[in-house]
């Protein structure tokens, strides 16, 4: 739990990050970006799970489970449909390079190294968490 001022600080900083992170996107990627952002707010699932897990009355539980179903649909469906859109962008580049061959799995080692490293760092704590 946090006090109000810390939450407000975080909120204001997140607004600026949100503005900054999409400010120079070409119109080609507007649709996938919107769809990806749409999937991210499916994280309300975390809130729905907490409420469902603390529900004492059957009535409250029923509403909370409905929220869980809706939030899961938003989260899972959102990421899957975004991936489908982007799958085609990859196919296009593969087709441009070598028409018949299947495009190789990743865009090469230089393409976004920092995010790769972070992804690995992130995996480690999660592993520990699920073991406990």
């Amino acid at each position, binding site marked *: 739990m946090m006090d109000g001022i810390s939450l407000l600080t975080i909120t204001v900083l997140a607004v600026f990050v949100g503005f900054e992170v999409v400010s120079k996107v070409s119109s080609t990627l507007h649709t*996938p970006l919107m769809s990806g952002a749409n999937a991210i707010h499916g994280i309300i699932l975390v809130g729905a799970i907490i409420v*469902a897990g603390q529900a004492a009355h059957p009535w409250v539980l029923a509403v909370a489970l409905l929220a869980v179903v*809706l939030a*899961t649909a938003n*989260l899972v469906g959102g990421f899957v449909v975004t991936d489908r859109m982007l799958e085609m962008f990859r196919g296009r580049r593969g087709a441009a390079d070598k028409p018949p061959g299947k495009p190789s799995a990743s865009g090469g080692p230089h393409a976004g190294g920092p995010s790769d490293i972070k992804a690995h760092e992130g995996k480690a704590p999660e592993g520990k968490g699920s073991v406990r």
Partner: protein
Amino acid sequence: MTLLDPTLTSLLYLAAAVFFILALKGLNSPRTARRGNLVGAFGALLAVVTVFFSVRLDNVPWILGAIAVGSGVAAPVARRVKMTQMPQLVALFNGVGGGAAALVALLELPHADDGWMRLAVVFTLLVGAVSFAGSAITFAKLQELMTTRPVVFPGLPVLMGAVLLAAVGSGAAVVLGGSLALALVLLVLGLLAGVLLVLPVGGADVPIVISLLNAFTGLAVAASGLVLGNVLLVVAGTLVGASGTILTRAMAAAMGRSVAGILFGAFKGNSTAGSTAVSDRPVRSSSAEDVAVLLGYAQRVIIVPGYGLAVAQGQHTAAELALALEARGIRVDFAIHPVAGRMPGHMNVLLAEANVPYESLKEMSEINSEFRTADVALVVGANDVVNPAAKTSAGSPIYGMPILEVADARQVVFLKRSLRPGFAGIENELMYEPQTTLLFGDAKDSLTKVLGAVKAL
């Protein structure tokens, strides 16, 4: 079961938030977009696993069952949906997210013990409900379950005003007293406001409204995070709210419209209303063979694809036609209007699906000066994005929208189903010009015939 240490929990949520930021960053560039999306999905998975191990939860089998139901329905639908129907699916997923946020807030109201907390509950309820109902209406419009034209009736602004006033009133009462009954009233008012907000929006503007409602859901999720004291929800929701706002403005700018004009235009009577009237002025219509001759003996052809191409699933045939023309030594490009299709970037996705090489897809700013050097501009299933009314007639609903300058090409060929006006419902003067030839029929059928005739030349 022992629970995770609160500090470790916070760190895991922080990691998830960082993944979300990296996801949005990755979605900025075609090269990193797909990985960005996967990074976001991983962040979400991390957060959901964390919540199971960090709070004491009852009803876990029920929760897992509900998650299974939600993914079991959404994932196959998202896998199988036709790319042309993708915008309405995004609208649907956005709506259910808003609905979930509203329900969470409703259930948390009894635990909200101060006025600020209840204010966050009220905000989430209202905005989540607006997003849910508004998205449902956009879904119905895009799926053509209802008319795509603006629905306006006398007294709409008054009704909207009354609903908002009532919402503010009951919201204030909930903040002060925490009454659950009034919260339910507020929920219903929010749903009503969502419907009234989207009904007057014209078909062509619907994608911008999806983006706006997406930002709304983000804000609702952020507010629900304040209610639950969950920093991850606050950060993720705020990120989406802020980036969604920027994106909405960028989309509106690409169409030469303002967000306020889209939402409230119909009230003033200058929305994308248009008409369904069919003019009986003479046009020059032609056969597939004639079009093939025009194309086959040109040096430079620019293809302008529109939504009609997409619904007819003709993108593969268009790609084949481009190949056949290139085999004859003709230079072929695709001119992509920023809002071609149903959403910005939608047409790029559809043509990429048909393996049209990236280098052949030209953005509007890049190609507009080149129509002058083109022998033929082949407009397939597009209308509003090449309509000169956007430049010339100040009273037109699309006035001010940047268009592709196909009129500069020596010949213009329209492949169209009929003379009916396009999505925005405005007649296109270009179709009556002497340099214009029309070939009537379904976009895919026409393209197949033209392709056959080109090969036979």
